[in-house]
């Protein structure tokens, strides 16, 4: 088997006395999706920040294409082909789609101080790069702010793919989206995977992770609950583990007990009349 694109072995991170992450191991292969699942505060953000180069790990090993690294900045990660799409997407809403797509890496024509952005090339490249991802935009001149949340996510993904990312890290790409939009974004995640990228998908929704994922890393309170191949786990089991197994059952029990017993119809009517009476009294 070829060396994985990314691999972490027993990595840990502490902030002063707080142990944010310990003994987490997983791999990211080309053409596969590794999902990182966990509830709030489970250490998902810390892990992706280590992968993205925003934090440096304190313990364990981080290997990029088999080579141990200590990344000191997101720029360094980017140079190694690790692109991260954070939740705010790094787009400027008032600027057009193509200007956002090339922001920071604008193609230019002309000489010295008189060089200009190659608008035609930029527009065409944006359109074709989006089309390659199966994203069909109406108009690349429209401001990004007029796109829907899912479309914006897709533009950010397409941008990372276009600029040569080998590994794509997506931070909660479906968090703020409706059911349909989330489905669309997952389709593009699959598209990126099929183009041979290694994808790290962070989410707290197992229903989003399971259809596209090849491997599932479950985090809880900074520790790994294990890294499972898709063949070894079912959606139901994934959901159960994520919610904390026995804890979920206890919660279900608790909720069931507290369910309000419906009152008989007559009592309800009486109540309504009473309240109406008291309201009339209050008015007079």
């Amino acid at each position, binding site marked *: 088997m070829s060396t994985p694109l990314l691999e972490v072995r027993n990595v840990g991170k502490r902030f002063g006395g707080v142990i944010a992450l310990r003994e987490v191991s997983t791999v990211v292969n080309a053409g596969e999706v590794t999902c990182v699942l966990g509830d709030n505060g489970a250490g998902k953000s810390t892990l992706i920040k280590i992968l993205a180069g925003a934090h440096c790990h304190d313990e364990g090993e981080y290997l990029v294409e088999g080579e141990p690294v200590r990344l000191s900045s997101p720029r360094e990660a980017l140079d190694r082909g690790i692109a991260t799409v954070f939740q705010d997407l790094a787009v400027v809403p008032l600027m057009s789609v193509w200007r956002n797509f090339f922001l920071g890496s604008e193609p230019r024509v002309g000489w010295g101080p008189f060089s200009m*952005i190659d608008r035609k090339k930029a527009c065409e490249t944006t359109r074709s790069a989006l089309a390659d991802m199966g994203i069909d935009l109406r108009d690349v001149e429209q401001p990004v*702010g*007029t796109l829907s949340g899912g479309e914006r996510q897709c533009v950010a993904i397409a941008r990372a793919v276009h600029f040569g990312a080998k590994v794509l890290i997506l931070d909660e790409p479906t968090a703020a989206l409706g059911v349909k939009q989330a489905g669309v974004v997952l389709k593009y995640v699959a598209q990126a995977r099929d183009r041979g990228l290694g994808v790290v998908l962070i989410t707290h929704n197992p229903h989003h992770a399971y259809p596209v994922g090849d491997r599932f890393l479950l985090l809880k309170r900074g520790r790994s609950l294990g890294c499972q191949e898709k063949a070894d786990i079912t959606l139901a089991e994934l959901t159960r583990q994520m919610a904390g197994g026995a804890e979920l059952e206890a919660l279900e029990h608790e909720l069931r007990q507290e369910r309000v017993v419906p009152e008989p119809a007559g009592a309800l009517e009486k109540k309504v009349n009473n309240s109406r009476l008291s309201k009339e009294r209050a008015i007079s």
Partner: protein
Amino acid sequence: MAVATPTVDERLARVGVLDRLLVRPELGAVLGALVVFTFFSVFTDQFLSPAGAATWLDDASTLGIMAVGVAMLMIGGEFDLSAGVMTASTALVTAILATQLGLNVWLALGGSLLFALAVGAFNGFVVMRTGLPSFIVTLGMFLALQGLNLGVTRLFTGSVQVSGISSVDGYESAGFLFASTVQIGSMTLQVSVLWWLLVAGVATWVLLRTRFGNWIFAVGGSVTSARQVGVPVMRTKILLFMTTAFAAWVVGSINILRFTTVQANQGIGLELQFIVAAVVGGCLLTGGFGSAIGAAIGALIFGMTRQGIVFARWDTDWFMLFLGVMLLAAVLVNNAFRRKAERVRR
């Protein structure tokens, strides 16, 4: 038979010319300018005469040069309240270097240019390093320069004005560049009008066609996003502050070479007029949106109104009332259009 179908997306309704115009940030300013122009053309005799037109174009020109600089800075998400006083400071530095220290006018101009760029860079550096609002930082610079202008001028000349630059070497040639007149038909146009057109043209080209322009919109629209994709935010903003200072140097040079005398208390209060012209021209106060052409037209509205009121023999006291009403109207109109242009879908 196969018909070659155009590759226009069927979801794109044909956008009318009117709708496409509505998206432009300078639309409000163009409409306002047309109204003001028509009004004074009809109600006064001198407004359309060559001499009359030259007068209001001249009035608009120096304001316009500054408005363009301030507009670029505002698109980049910052303010410069020291811009008004800077026009006096640069003129004073030039005049003192030339008349008191005996430098050639060209050298004096070079010296004041360096001074202006240094002040601009300082403004930008302090704003970026401390993270304080540029409003506060440049307000401090505004007050400091105001004091310096008076203090240093009195130190050198014993009065609050510097004059006598016309007898210094290089005045003729420098004056040709900054303070000559151009004959167009029967109209004697000040060269400052050409500077105004040049500055507006170059600024528009930079904003819409160059990489730096792209960065200006980006740092004004969303600093964190710009930083994440590798835009050098600090450099971009410092250069913008320096651009405003450069514009103030151009205006200061025009003033000192044309009038040959500069008062130490000039320029105070102008900074708000620059901002008003930029806002009338479609700049958002929050940054990330606006146009250089719009700011130039905003300044044109100013010039036309200020001189139009004189031609109509009204009391000039009404000018300020007009200013306030126009600012409010422009902001309301621009807001309405922008919302129409960019209705945000979720």
